């Protein structure tokens, strides 16, 4: 189980990386932490002529406050995200999602940008990015652009980035006020990809009414899913009158592409997703009310 040969490139600047991607075209693939890509290469499920290793680009690393958002460099390891005090205080949902990402050995190599660009619907970071309306800083030799999370994930393991584009960083809006956050997921074993899960953010007004909420569903479709209809129904409701189980049922009601395989039928995953949403809603709303 050995990877096929490839040409290796290790640029040290974003500009050089973008130049390489432009020059090499479709045969090139960005190598970030490699924790999803290298297994695919080893199994020869994927073969590329060129790998552009972005691990030596200092500009891709870092966690910093930029206005009312927290910017996380795409090359920041999941371990660094998990250990960051800034992440924990500014984007608690990201911090709470991190322990669910693989095992600690994986988080030592895997990067936030790699996870989001890989766009696995069962992964945590894409769902968090979607839930929080994060924006993706994307760079190519043609210039830079920002892609909203809702426009970013466009299919199974697929994003709206062009093949010459590199994800440089992700900006997560900081939720202030009376907020609560929770991530709940169910996997066959600790550390496995979730069969179903959710990242929930809630903000309450001074009267315990839901000012806004965000539900990013994990493993419930071909992309991370946002329960927008449910969120709209919840807006303005007194949080003490919200039935968490009903939130769960509502969140999964409209899903059309719930996966089905050996480990879980679509029917089962739907029920599981509802249960996870209910649990996360309870935790997040309690946190929002009581701090």
């Amino acid at each position, binding site marked *: *189980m*050995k*990877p*096929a*040969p*490839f*040409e*290796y490139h*290790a640029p040290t600047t974003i500009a050089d990386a973008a130049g390489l991607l432009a020059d090499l075209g479709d045969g090139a693939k960005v*190598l970030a932490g*490699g*924790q999803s890509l*290298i*297994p695919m*290469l*080893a*199994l020869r499920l994927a073969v590329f002529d060129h*790998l552009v*290793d972005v*691990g030596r680009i200092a500009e891709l690393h870092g966690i910093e406050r930029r206005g009312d958002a927290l910017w996380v460099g795409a090359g920041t390891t999941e*371990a660094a995200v998990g250990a960051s005090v800034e992440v924990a205080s500014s984007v608690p949902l990201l911090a709470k999602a991190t322990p669910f990402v*693989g*095992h*600690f*050995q*994986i988080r*030592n*190599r895997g990067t936030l940008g790699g996870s989001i660009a890989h766009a696995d619907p069962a992964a945590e970071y894409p769902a968090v990015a979607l839930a929080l309306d994060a924006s993706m800083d994307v760079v190519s030799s043609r210039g830079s652009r920002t892609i909203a999370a809702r426009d970013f994930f466009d299919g199974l393991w697929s994003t709206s980035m062009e093949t010459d584009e590199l994800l440089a960083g992700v900006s997560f809006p900081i939720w202030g006020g009376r907020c609560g956050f929770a991530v709940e997921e169910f996997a066959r*074993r*600790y*550390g496995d990809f979730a069969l179903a899960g959710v990242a929930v953010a809630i903000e309450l007004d001074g009267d315990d009414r839901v000012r806004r909420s965000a539900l990013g569903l994990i493993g419930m479709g071909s992309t991370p899913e946002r329960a927008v209809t449910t969120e709209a129904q919840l807006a303005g409701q007194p949080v003490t009158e919200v039935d968490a189980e009903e939130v769960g049922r509502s969140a999964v009601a409209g899903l059309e592409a719930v996966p089905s395989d050996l480990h879980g039928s679509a029917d089962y995953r739907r029920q599981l997703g509802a249960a996870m949403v209910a649990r996360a809603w309870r935790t997040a709303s309690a946190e929002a009310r009581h701090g």
Partner: protein
Amino acid sequence: MGETTVNVTVNGRSCEAVVEARLTLADFLRETCHLTGTHLGCEHGVCGACTVLVDGAAVRSCLMFAVQAGGTEVTTIEGIAAPDGELSTVQAAFRDCHGLQCGYCTPGFIVSVTAFLEDNPSPTDQEIREALSGNLCRCTGYQGILNAVHQVTGAARGEEPA
């Protein structure tokens, strides 16, 4: 296609070689450096048998290319015991608690546990289990391994070994 010179410091010793870019760090350690204590149990990043320390962090050496490790300091299972052969606290605890049977997964467990306890010297049982869950063992049912980690953390707290 794609040959590169890499220089990795392995267990304190510089190891320089011209390698194919596709050579995994695991195969580099085993075949180029002749350090065969790092084992391959799945080659797709699940079993953890190939775990080594790269700049002190536990990683799967099958999920890294040797070229990515250029300039780093790598510690393998061969670098865990003292130079005179005295077992580390973690290794000794595995021996005392029958934390290994066939020994194939053992290097990965020793390396992972060493790194984990460095970061968290007083873990709870649940934290220990979660930390171990990235390493698969088929012989022990994890009982002796869990006992071994508890022995190390208990000793660190001044408790008598069970």
